[in-house]
């Protein structure tokens, strides 16, 4: 995965796009039962602010870069998309500019899977976790780590207002190689 200026640069055109959380219906939020932690935080602006569905509260780091958000799952999960909400207009030098995403089994073997650069972002930034390889639409992992490597205007600390992680929905019919999509199949596929 090359470091690249990802499509999340917020040019005038992209701004509107990331105002809304735009996620496919066949994805669902995966991290409700995960363990979230951060490398440092200012009292009152802790990790809970990242998960409270409130865009007014934010996490503020309080230490040296890189600032880390760690998400540990109870079992290996398939993840497809990471979305975070940041706002340059309000946070200015606290807005992240370079973010690295790492995955692995635990702190000991995290490997970088993606790096993105943000340019004055306002709103939801969608970061797909897949590589270019179609086989790698998902990453299969126990742990995800989001590292804020640098901020706009060389700020030391960072503000992130919300983070959501998405993965595929499980097949409603267990132990099937493929999903059913046609009405005929779906009608008969489950009882309720």
């Amino acid at each position, binding site marked *: 995965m090359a470091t690249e200026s990802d499509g999340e640069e917020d040019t005038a055109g992209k701004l509107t796009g990331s105002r809304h959380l735009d996620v496919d219906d066949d994805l669902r939020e995966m991290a409700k039962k995960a363990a979230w932690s951060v490398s440092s935080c200012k009292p009152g602006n802790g990790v809970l602010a990242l998960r409270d569905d409130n865009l007014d509260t934010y996490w503020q780091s309080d230490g040296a870069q890189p600032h880390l958000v760690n998400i540990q799952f109870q079992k290996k999960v398939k993840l497809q998309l990471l979305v975070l909400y940041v706002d340059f207009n309000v946070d200015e030098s606290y807005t992240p500019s370079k973010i690295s995403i790492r995955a692995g089994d635990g702190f000991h073997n995290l490997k970088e899977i993606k790096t993105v650069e943000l340019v004055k972002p306002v709103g939801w930034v969608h970061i797909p976790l897949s590589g270019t390889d179609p086989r790698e639409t998902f990453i299969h992992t126990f742990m995800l780590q989001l590292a804020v490597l640098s901020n706009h205007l060389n700020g030391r600390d960072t503000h992130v207002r919300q983070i959501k992680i998405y993965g595929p929905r499980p097949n409603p019919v267990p132990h099937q*190689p493929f999903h059913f*999509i046609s009405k005929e199949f779906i009608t008969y596929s489950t009882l*309720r």
Partner: protein
Amino acid sequence: METLMVDRVQSSLRLFMNRNAIFLCERLCAEFPSELNLQLLATCYLRNNQAYCAYHILKGSKMPQSRYLFAMSCFQMNLLREAEAALCPANEPNAEVPNGAAGHYLLGLIYRYTGRRTCAVDHFVQALGIDPLLWAAYEELCILGAAEEASEYFNDAAAFRVQQQQLSESSSQNLTIGTEYQSLPSSMALGSGDTSPRHSKQLHANNTRETLSHPHGTVMAAGHPTISGPSNISQYYTPPAVAQLSGVAPPPLCRNAHLYLNAIGGDGSTKSNVNAAIQAPRRKFVDEGKLRKVSGRLFSDSGPRRSTRLSGEAAANTNSNASQLGGNGTNHSSAKYLGGLYSSSSSSKTNSTVLRSVTLRRGQPWANENFDEDNTVTTSSSMSALPDGKCLEQDKMGCGILAHDSRLTSGIREFLGLLRTLGEGYRLSCLYRSQEALEVYLRLSQHQFNTGWVLSQVGKAHFELVDYFEADRFFDLARRVSPYTLEGMDIYSTVLYHLKEEMKLSYLAQELISVDRLSPQAWCAMGNCYGRQNDHETALKNFQRAVHLDPRFAYAHTLCGHEYVALEDFENGIKCYQSSLQVDERHYNAWYGLGIVYLRQEKFEFAEHHFRKAFHINPRSSVLMCYLGMALHSLKRDEDALEVMEKAISADKKNPLPVYQKANILSSLERFDEALKELEQLKECAPRESSVYALMGKIYKRLNMHEKAMFYFGLALDLKPPAADVATIKSAMEKLYLPDELEDTL
């Protein structure tokens, strides 16, 4: 003064002025403390949904009627052990159950909810024996899966019993002045020779009682005369939905009550003897002639309206009784009776005096009213519902009294016939023999069929046959016919869920909530709405609300379970399914749910066991068979799996899933050609199903027919399957290009 107070209380109850009744009754009890007055007070509380009050005042009472009321209060407060102790005192193992059929019915419910199925069945059967018209008992038997064919219960022997009861009722009517209760031996005790009208309380209290949960057709309610006149009729007119799948909703009690009344004492002559014996102290025996005359009247009386009869109004009674099920009752039969009555009144003076006296004796409060109001009563009773009876009855004015008896018999027969059909339909429906059930329901008359209850049942039968379109149609009709009916609407919401009709589903949910915010069905529908949109947390909240509102509503528990599983919280899911099974062991959806959980957890033996249980209960569901097969396949018992799949395929030609599963199993057994054959078939009936093409691609890949594999994978991708499938398929396609370098692991 006591009489006056009692009368006022009773009339307040009749007119649903519960607070007034309670206040006056409390004064009555303070002034004239007696157990009978206490019973009246308890009845007032029960009517006002204050079971806890009734519980406290009746605690420790020994009289049968008191015990019955106490048991009723305990039941409503979910104190099942105390309720049981009240009805069957431990130190009196041979005591007769108070209120006969109604008591047995209540006892049956208690046993059912405490998990003692055989005892429950036993009591329901006894209840039906005493009162063959006690539909609710038969319904419970069906739910427990222990019902014999309807013709076993609603047959000629039953007709004879009912007739005997009517006759003995009339005789007892004549006999006592104070008694009036045609209640059961238990109530006898209450009578104690007091001639005040309030003794009449017994009988008719029923109707109203059960506002709260249990459908007992109990009549002999606590000393309130509840009925009479207008109130009765209105009570009769409660919504037709009798059968509660969950066993909880209040069916129109009045109907049963009346029937019960008529059923006084139980089996034919012996009972009447018993009655006579018990009531002996007060009875004077009436001569045969009077008896006969009275019998006809009494029969139609099944309830309230003697006054109406007297006044010449169509006694909607029988109508209302009949309307139990459909609201369109057997008007004819009632009319017949009425005709007889009136003719009798017109034919001779003595008759009319007898009528009067009978009325009086019958004791119910209306007796007094009868005299006063006489003709006015007729107008007051809101017979609006039963105009037919009225007309017919007037027509028959001229018939002789003796014609009564034959009309009585034929009326009973007709009624039993109706119950027989409905009972058979319901029984088959509970056994999930839905096709047969449908045929039985079609035998009903037009006006009976087009009622909320029947249409809902038909809808449910179609639902069980996995014919969601027809189910939708019938439920829709049911809603049009009776928009206030809630029963079965939870199933309707599931039908719409399966059909993915989100608009209709949300509309249904909104409507149901507006009809009754406290009904579990409404919240189930809401939950289904959110579940359909994959918002499982909100759906779960709604289902939990439904559970809180009615913990005896099995389906709400099951739906909670489904949502937990969707949220991958298997532990709670299992708990919910188990609660559902505790309420209703024959709820196959819960067994199915458990099977799914175990399948996901890869505990394949458990999965197979649970699917098999579900299949046992509903052996006609092709979906269940399919899942059973899948579990067997996971256990590597492929021969058995294939066999079950074959059964599933033949059970429902429209279900593509077993065919697909069969192909899957065959391909895992490396019987590729057969698998492909099945998939080719599927292609025809579900041409837009990507999984079919994907599986074909997979098979061709195994057969090293790469071009075909690519072709089919391409087709599958074109149909835009979800991302997970896209990944799998693309990955498979990639590997196709490197057959020599990589092992074909896909």
